[in-house]
């Protein structure tokens, strides 16, 4: 009988243990459940917003997106150590879109930009949890401002996604993570961007004193004006840019050469830029633009002025600058190989055979070694990446006014004066478009979009066919993952 007792007692123990599931309750380490953040601590409410800035900074500075945005213009070619080096960009440049459907740069840029959209939705959830615990009216106002800062980045991401791909899927806020979205027409995407930006314009402050460089009302207005310009809605562009010019109290940076260098970080001219830092220390961790700078750095040059030699200005563009007598802008836009830069860095000669001239690197990605924190050896370390500039606001304003018969000369000549160019009394549309070409070399695909929207792309860009080449093909890996992307567009 004794064994039966033994067995019985073990069964009893087992039952006790199994009913006692508590023993098996182990919370995973290393993660903080969303539910367990103290959302009543309103002083931490900026956390979700700061996270969005970080995410946008990282994904907008992906190097592979930079050639996709820019090489389709007539100012720059992909560069690199040979034509075969990252040849996919050459296919993009030549509008050979069939060859790039499985090009990795398309896939990664797509994913990076959508990641910003996801982050804005996910972090809005966190912001709303803080908001539920707000007791003071002033904090509610602050929450609205924070919401606008988040939404600004969503608008920014959709702006670039739609510029690159046209009809694009929109993330459903009700089912952020698990949907298989269909594509929406470019028009409805732009409607969404406008409505997000309207919210931003209402709720963003004119000045960000606590978080210097954070998005302001003027950032949102400038982006909205640009979107309207791309849509040909000149009246909206005109009214928005005029308001900025009138009310924002912003000036162009007079130290033009320093605008894209360390002293030009957060210059008054800048309406929005992605901020990086080395924490003013020669070693240790840094927040660094990485390959965004490096790929534009001089080939085979000693560190720190060293990179992969991509994004080389075309001879047509160099001639264009020379013909216009652009000596001030030259120094800003161009880092010429085989010379010493105005800031004193020797740039060794690079003469790739695929170019009819020697290499002229993008001067707007150049940070002189003398301005770098001693100890840092990475090209562009501690520098920011500029996105929206007051010069753009002025030139958009000038263009809109030319088209709506307003005074275009004042805004145009303000930009020309800074570039040490003579004023034009009665500017034509062509004057303004040429000014844009000279001012915005290798900046966020401006040149390509200017050519497309003014219907010059087919004549100026070899291989471009109107109606076929405005937008890149959707990456094949994305179509593999979401077959709805090959379905007809939802209006």
């Amino acid at each position, binding site marked *: 009988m004794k*064994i039966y007792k033994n067995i019985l007692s073990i069964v009893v123990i*087992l039952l006790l243990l*199994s009913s006692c*599931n508590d*023993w*098996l*309750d182990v919370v*995973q*380490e*290393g*993660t*903080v459940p*969303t539910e367990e*953040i103290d959302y009543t601590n309103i002083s931490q409410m*900026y*956390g*979700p917003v*700061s*996270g*969005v800035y970080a995410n946008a*900074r*990282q994904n907008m500075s992906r190097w592979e997106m930079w050639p996709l945005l820019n090489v389709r213009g007539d100012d720059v070619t992909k560069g690199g*150590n040979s034509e*075969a*080096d990252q040849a*996919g960009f050459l296919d993009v440049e030549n509008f050979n879109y069939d*060859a790039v*459907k*499985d090009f*990795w740069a398309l*896939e990664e840029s797509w994913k990076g930009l*959508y990641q910003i*959209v*996801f*982050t804005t939705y996910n972090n809005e*959830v966190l912001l709303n949890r803080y908001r539920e615990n707000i007791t003071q009216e002033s904090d509610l106002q602050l929450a609205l401002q924070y919401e606008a800062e988040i939404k600004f980045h969503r608008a920014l991401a959709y702006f670039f996604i739609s510029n690159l791909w046209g009809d694009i899927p929109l*993330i459903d806020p009700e089912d*952020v*993570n698990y949907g*298989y979205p269909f594509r929406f027409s470019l028009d409805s995407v732009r409607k969404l961007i406008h409505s997000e930006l309207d919210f931003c314009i209402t709720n963003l402050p004119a000045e*960000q004193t606590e*978080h210097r*460089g954070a998005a302001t009302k003027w950032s949102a207005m400038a982006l909205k004006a640009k979107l309207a310009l791309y849509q040909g809605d000149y009246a909206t562009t005109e009214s928005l840019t005029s308001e900025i010019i009138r009310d924002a109290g912003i000036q162009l940076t007079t130290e033009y050469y320093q605008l894209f260098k360390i002293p030009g970080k*957060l210059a008054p001219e800048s309406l929005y830029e992605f*901020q990086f*830092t080395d*924490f003013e*220390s020669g*070693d*240790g961790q840094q*927040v660094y633009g990485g390959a965004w700078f490096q790929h534009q750095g001089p080939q085979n040059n*000693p*560190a720190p002025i*060293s990179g992969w*030699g991509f994004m080389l200005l075309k001879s047509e563009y160099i001639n264009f600058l020379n013909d216009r007598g652009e000596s001030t802008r030259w120094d800003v836009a161009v880092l010429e190989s085989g010379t010493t830069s105005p800031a004193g860095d020797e740039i060794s000669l690079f003469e790739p*055979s695929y170019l009819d001239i020697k290499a002229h690197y993008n001067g707007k990605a150049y940070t002189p070694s003398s301005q770098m924190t001693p*100890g840092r050896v990475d090209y562009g370390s501690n520098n920011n990446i500029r996105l929206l500039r007051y010069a753009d606001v002025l030139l958009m304003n000038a263009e809109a006014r030319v088209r709506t018969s307003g005074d275009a000369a004042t805004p145009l000549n303000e930009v020309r004066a800074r570039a040490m160019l003579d004023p034009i009394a009665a500017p034509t549309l062509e004057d303004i478009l040429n000014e844009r070409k000279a001012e915005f070399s290798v900046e966020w695909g401006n040149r390509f979009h200017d050519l497309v929207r003014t219907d010059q792309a087919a004549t100026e860009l070899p291989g471009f066919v109107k109606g076929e080449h405005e937008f890149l093909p959707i990456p094949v*890996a*994305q179509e593999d993952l*979401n077959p709805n992307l090959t379905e007809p567009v939802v209006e």
Partner: protein
Amino acid sequence: MIKKTLILLFMLGQIALAQDPVNIAGDVYDDTGAPLPGASVVIKGTTTGVSTDFDGHFELPGVLATDVIVISFIGLLPQEITVGSQTNFNITLKSDASDLEEVVVIGYGTSKSKDLTSPIATVSAEEITSMNTSSAMGAVQGKLPGVTIVSSGVPGDGPAVSIRGVGSFEDTSPLYVVDGMFLDDINFLNPNDIETMSILKDASAAAIYGVRAANGVVLITTKSGSKDRKPTVTYDGYYGVQNVSQRLEMANSQQYADFMRASGDPDLAALIDASIARYGGSNGYPSVSTDWYEELIKNNASIQNHSLSLTGGTEKTAYAFSAGYFKQDGIMDATGEYERINFRAKVDFDISDKVKIGFTSLLTNEDKMTDDSQAWFQAYVNAPTYPVYDETQSSEESYPIKFANPHNLGYDTYYTNPAAVAYYRGDNKTDGTRFMPSIYLEVDPFNNKDIKFRTALNIDYRYEANTLYTPEYKSGNNIQQINQLSKTTRWDYDYVWDNTITWDNQWDRHRLKSMVGFSVREENHRWLQGTAQGVQNKEYINTGDESTTRSYDGGTKFKGLSAFARFSYDYLNKYILSVTMRADGSSKYQDKWGYFPSVGAGWVISEEDFFAGVRGSGFDFFKLRASWGMLGNDKVPANDGFASITTGGLNESGIFGGSNLIPGMLNNSVYSSLAWEVVYETNVGIDTKFLDYRLNFEADYYSRDTKDMVIRTVLPMGNGSILRNTGSVRNSGIEILVGWSDKVGSDFRYSVGGNLTTIKNEVLDLGNEPYIQTGTAEYPQRSVVGEALYSFYGYKVDGVYQNQTEIDNDPIAVANGLEPGDLKFSDLNKDGKIDSDDRTLIGKPNADFTYGFNFSAGYKGFTLAAAFQGVQGASIFNRKRADINKHPINNLDADLADNVWSGEGSSNTYPSAKGMFNTWNNARLSDFYIEDGSYFRIQNIRLSYDFSSDLVNKAKLSAVQLYINADRPFTSFKSNGFTPEVPGGIDETVYPIPSIYSLGARISF
């Protein structure tokens, strides 16, 4: 002695007079005539009995003339003798040629081989040490059906083991149970310490391990002593050299120069001219031609192992002690090496007839220096056109060692001198200490019933310290401006507490063995890491620049609770039934409890009356068995179960106004809600023996369906990926094992054996997904219903355009501006263009079948043994070659350089050199990059000599063996790599696997 004999004689007289109990005595010998200590002598039907002493002698009082005494010893055929009037016995136990009585270790117990309803593969100590490998699993390769082993060449790393195919997207390695402790690998264990290894493959055997059993279970029993044995000291050791006997040949400078110039791109030709300008050359060819692999490979890297053991026992105690030392140098000419010291003690003690206690403790110390395997990859991509060292560089350009710098020739920073990588990146040291104590108590409380209670606590305590130091250096544009030190310590504390009751019950013709138990386990892992830059002393973080010191920590904890039972029933040794059940609770998942039953049945047909006739004609044994059961896999990642937030780090925080970091947070709302995977396994098999048990034939059919398979689903739009329990996959096939062994005369003996395993891997269901895409966006792998897991997905090559007419006649070629020498892809959907719709499955990483065979022949003291193994039907994706897509100035392998299309009719599979630079040919995953991963290998050849016992005894030794051994001397394979054994079928950076030639000795006294 005289006194004893007198008493004996006196007793003898007593018996003659009446049926009174008498004392009997005797000596037991094995079939070589050696005395057999520790043999059991029992009066049949009672528990009265004794064991033989050191000299094989026994005395047993109180025996009746009508009694039958049973004399038995493990591994020998038992004998039964009716006592009668005899009182002194000379008994010789014959060895059991049939191995049917062999005791096999199964989960929480043992069983005789003939009573099994499962195909359990067992490996003996001799087989484990028949190859000179650091990990015991390496020696099993090719020897057992159903066990797939992919070796690793990294010193101290064990091979990847999978049992009966890949049934999980996640971890597929089996559970190792070493004397009751659950482990993830056994690389730390000295192979000489292993007594037996049992591999549980089917559900009937493995389901007793429930949620840990889905990938199979490897049970390991370490060596113990035996009672009443004289102490025996054994030395077992070898010393050998390792060499890379077969290597991947790369293009030399001349071939590389031709290739670059053939591109027609002057910028590529300029790289060649730069080499000629800097290092000399003539006729357009550089004079330098560096073979980077040659520079990296160390010849005659040493490997050695020394083990010393002491085993023995007294009347109540059995003990085994051992010490082992193993050292292996890496075959990269850098710092890599692995050194291991093991100490082990195992003691079993009988407190009384009813209570036994035992203690085992294992202490292992491992020191490992890890090479940066990136050097192997750099050796592939770097051009041969520059030397290892270049003293002409200024000390600012390259320091402290003047490694030549490819950037001087115009190469970008993707390229680093491979020798510099090996030199500067090799200071990666890991010291680990592992202490595994275990204790058990076994109580046998009843005199007349075979009931045992056993409780055992197994503990595994590990401590590991890693130091990774990168010195200050500069090699062209690859710069470590300030030295960097990273130190990581890890602690692990795991335990398993098992409690079992076993009851062996026999009545009439029935026998029922029951076992019930419960078990508690816990796994704790903690780590702490510190980093600093600019350290003065590379041992200490605190000598670094204070502003750069950082620390990180983390850990995990899992708990498990289980109850289990097994009932094994047999009737007349003819009909066998085995039922097991396990209930497992795990802290990893929301749904905490899972239930894993199994049932197995066996029918020993050869015991049936109607078989008697067949039996006489050489068919000795025939068993039919079948089993079904459920197994769990909780090696899938733990469940997050909730949305979580990452906060405060650089990646989550915005920067404002220059350098003001505002701690930010990112909400991760993509999270998994997982449960364990469940494998449903069916097995049907036969065991047969023929011709006086000399021929052994086993065959099994298995089918394993993994359900609720955990799949990492990539979410669209770049929203990361998520693990889901969705879909199922089936692995099915047959396993065949054949063996023959015999003696001719008394001096010549031989054996041959072979095995074959087929594995058909098939996706049965993927939930609602049409397919699951893995791999990278450029080189996708697809799992499609009805096809194998992880199949490579890309374009099919039809051939190479041979001439202009062919181009002109093909609209596709015209549309894409192709030239003769470009690849012709299959237009699968016949729509007149090549696009993503023309992709298909072009290969699978797992084999169709694996096989192995071996023979051994011995004459007197000499034995020659050899083992062979091979794999058929796997594909390898040559990722190294495909790298030319992004990096056209890479070097190329010699096979490609030799075979590129060079005019009409020269090749119909390789594009022209010029074509290799065209994204049409190089940028897509096509079967041009897919190679045959089949191979055949001479696994091992060993010649050994056992000195004759006369000679040995004169030297007061008990056994001496010397051997020479060659491991993996030759492999026949077609793929363009160092080895066809590449994990996951993707050849990117694979550490070469060396051949090992060694000399060894085994001496005991």
